[in-house]
């Protein structure tokens, strides 16, 4: 073989090897990239993209990520809490500041950015633990994922949660018809969304949007994908636009008409929420049905409310002033051990540690 040919081959080899750090980003498809592809987005013009050269039409659909005007919730009065712009937490998995030990009370927590009060009600022959939460900025409503699975208490502690509850089971399910987003990171954004499940979407204003049997979700996703902070697939939807979601002879999920431990989250107003944990499998708390839970959420003033994972998975936890002592810890099934979870929903303080007096 001629020397010139050998040189050309060597140069080609070197070029390919040197180019590797510019396009070999990850062994697996990055979820960030997957969302971009699902939305028909494009990479920067300078990036290595043979697809654009070969399939220009497939890449041309640009997502309409326009501004979102909340239509579902009538926003009348601003929250009483407010914080400087510089304190606002990012919509990502950054661990927020630790709660201030001096701001805990025996049943809650309050500082400049968050107000939490927990009480236990007796409803439907059950202990219904309710956390009323107000926050100053939408990103204080946060989620955390844990790829290795741990108890809710451990995930909450690792993320400096003021108050936390279990998320949904389906984050780990292999079904790609689901719509699962956590802190703007798309975990599952199937093109054909399941019509068997209700979906809860939380936007970057902190407003809830409930989609019964995912009806309307596809359109919403196409228009507002960039405005979504979190999306859950579990359900059922309990309250939608201020009305109880009624289901005759429901067969939704596990034992919809049976008495069981339940966890639910609802929005009562702008940046105001309730987290509800109903206890079961104990002498004085038998649990509730989905319909009863919907009634509870409605009575608590929810405009939108959604059922999360229940039974042994249901937990509501509030860290205490000391990092090793939990202030409150309720679980859905009194007879069960704590179950490892892959995600939580939680509320955090936005007050930076250095700003505390």
């Amino acid at each position: 073989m001629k020397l010139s040919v050998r040189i050309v081959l060597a140069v080609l080899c070197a070029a390919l090897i040197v180019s590797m750090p510019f396009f070999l980003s990850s062994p697996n498809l990055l979820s960030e990239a997957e969302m971009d592809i699902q939305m028909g987005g494009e990479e920067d013009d300078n990036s290595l993209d043979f697809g654009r050269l070969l399939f220009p039409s497939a890449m041309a659909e640009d997502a309409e990520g326009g501004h979102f005007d909340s239509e579902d919730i009538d926003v009348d009065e601003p929250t009483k809490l407010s914080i400087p712009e510089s304190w606002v937490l990012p919509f990502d998995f950054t661990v927020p500041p630790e709660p201030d030990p001096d701001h805990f009370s025996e049943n809650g927590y309050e500082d400049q950015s968050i107000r939490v009060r927990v009480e236990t009600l007796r409803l439907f022959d059950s202990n219904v633990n309710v956390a009323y939460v107000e926050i100053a900025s939408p990103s204080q409503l946060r989620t955390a994922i844990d790829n290795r699975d741990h108890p809710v208490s451990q995930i909450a502690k690792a993320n400096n949660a003021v108050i936390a509850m279990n998320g949904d089971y389906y984050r780990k399910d292999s079904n790609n018809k689901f719509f699962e987003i956590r802190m703007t990171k798309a975990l599952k954004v199937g093109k054909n969304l399941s019509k068997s499940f209700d979906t809860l979407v939380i936007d970057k204003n902190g407003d809830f949007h409930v989609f019964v049997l995912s009806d309307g979700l596809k359109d919403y996703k196409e228009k507002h994908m960039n405005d979504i902070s979190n999306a859950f697939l579990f359900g059922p939807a309990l309250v939608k636009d201020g009305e109880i979601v009624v289901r005759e002879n429901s067969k939704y999920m596990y034992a919809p008409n049976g008495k069981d431990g339940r966890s639910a989250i609802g929005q009562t107003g702008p940046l105001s929420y309730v987290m509800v944990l109903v206890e079961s499998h104990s002498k004085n708390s038998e649990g509730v049905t989905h319909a009863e839970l919907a009634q509870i959420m409605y009575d608590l003033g929810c405009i939108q409310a959604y059922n999360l994972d229940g039974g042994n998975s249901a937990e509501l936890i509030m860290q205490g002033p000391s990092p090793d002592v939990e202030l409150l810890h309720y679980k859905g099934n009194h007879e069960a051990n704590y179950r490892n979870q892959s995600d939580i929903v939680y509320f955090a303080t936005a007050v930076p540690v250095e700003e505390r007096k």
Partner: protein
Amino acid sequence: MKMWEEAPQTEIFGIPVYTFGLYCLVGALCAVVCIRILCGELKMKKGTAWVLSLASIVFGLVFSRLSYCIVRLIGDMIGGGGVLPVSFWFRLSTGGWSLYGMIFGVFIAARVTAAITKEPKRRLLDIVSCALPLAMAAERAGERLFEVFNISRSIPDGQFPANTFLAVHDAVYGDNYIATYDYCAVAAVILFLLLVFTLTRGRTREGDVWIMFMILAGAGGAILESLRYDSFMELSFVRIQQAAAAALLVWGVIAAGKRVNGDRKRLFTAAAISLPITIGAVIGIEFALDKTNLSHVLLYVLMVIFVAVPVVLGLKLLLGGREKGKEAA
């Protein structure tokens, strides 16, 4: 240039690059140097090393991507959530590569190189088989950068190898996990040394080292992939990477068997019979690992024993054939 923020990055001379890609660069560079040296040692025609290197990189990348995309496509079709557009297959920076696809691509590259240079294809397969473990070691070391991949089976508190260099310690939760990617990288380096030693000793038939690679890399992969817990390339409960490793082992044993005749046919029959038994046993052990409280150490010892049977028989077939060849000479 847009970089995906999710992927670990570093800067070289102020230019941001993907760290995983940097590991792959080092692996590819080492592999090319290895090919160059071995082609010289084995007195291949001038230029063969460059043709083989270029073909290996191109075919390795193409088949690696292709394998991932096909598995993803099948998974999407089974899942029913809609498939990713074909353009995704060509958007290389999105991530999505298969190690075993890369290995298969490099085998094809050796055959293409043989057709171009008229060198014996089995000898070229021997050479790339020596170089491959270097690329594999670097790639595996690169995978440990990703928290989402760096998930392996957990180690209960106080049990070996917790709190040793053989474990990954999770500081947030205080848990210990098996350091699978380190094991994979070390195993690949050991495999490289073994194969190079075998090839350069000068007593091998053409293709023996390639078959050894398939048997040993396949067996090692079948066990090491079991230690992972990161759901990478899964179809339902089937781990595609582990199945691909098993396929490599089966291919290696059959290739070894096809090289023998006469009295050693019985040994080949034994090796062939051991394959489905081993695969069945490994599947059973996998279920036991996931669904029972049996000791994981015990189950992995059992898995190693079962996998060792076709490996020993396969290598015996190779070794026997080699001795027979020597006698004839």
